[in-house]
């Protein structure tokens, strides 16, 4: 969080990290935000995720890879990566990007994913990725008969040598 005090009308970002763990299934996590007035006030925010195996055969849109790793050896520039969506279903999906770290990445994708077809999502790192590394994520929403979100982790590290690159 960038500020711990806000003037009237002012706002600040709160970056929340959520670790999905190993156990598959629906996982809910909470964060409590407190502030001081004449007493201490607290408010809660909630994060949900449906944790699935890395090779997920339960959903009819195949996603690969499940994580995008932009890590490089120190001195190298991180390169654009691609995410592929393949529609194994009989219905068409409208695809939209609902959340991503605008400060660090530029993303382009198509709008529709027809039955049997594939779509490419291009994720291009900007020049300001921090040297100390980064863990962020992007969230896509697929709208067919129902809406389904998919979140893809974005990882960036700089390593001194190839053996240290993860």
């Amino acid at each position, binding site marked *: 969080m960038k500020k711990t005090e806000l003037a009237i009308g002012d706002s600040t970002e709160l970056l929340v990290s959520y670790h999905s763990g190993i156990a598959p299934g629906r996982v809910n996590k909470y964060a409590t935000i407190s502030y001081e007035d004449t007493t201490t006030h607290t408010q809660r925010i909630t994060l949900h995720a449906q944790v699935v195996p890395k090779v997920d055969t339960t959903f009819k849109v195949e996603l690969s890879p499940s994580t995008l790793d932009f890590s490089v050896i120190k001195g190298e520039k991180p390169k654009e990566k691609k995410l592929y969506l393949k529609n194994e279903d009989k219905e068409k999906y409208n695809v939209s990007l609902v959340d991503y770290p605008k400060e660090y990445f530029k993303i382009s994708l198509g709008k529709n994913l027809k039955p049997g077809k594939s779509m490419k999502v291009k994720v291009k790192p900007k020049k300001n990725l921090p040297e100390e590394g980064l863990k962020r994520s992007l*969230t896509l929403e697929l709208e067919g008969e129902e809406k389904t979100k998919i979140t893809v982790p974005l990882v960036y590290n700089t390593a001194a040598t190839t053996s240290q690159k993860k």
Partner: protein
Amino acid sequence: MKLKSLFLIVSFLFFSFSLSQAGAPKIDFSERVWDFGRTPQKSTLTHIFWIKNVGSDTLKGISVKTP
């Protein structure tokens, strides 16, 4: 007379309430719930919430706790 007393009591209560609300900070969020949807195991996901002071005084001592 009774009506006058009732009016005075209600006015006093309203005035007291207004005083207690004056100059108080109030927090508001861009959203209170975020759903990541389907995500792989052993991953770190992130989301930015925006916090805004929609009250009438400075919001101080903001802190965040996670279990």
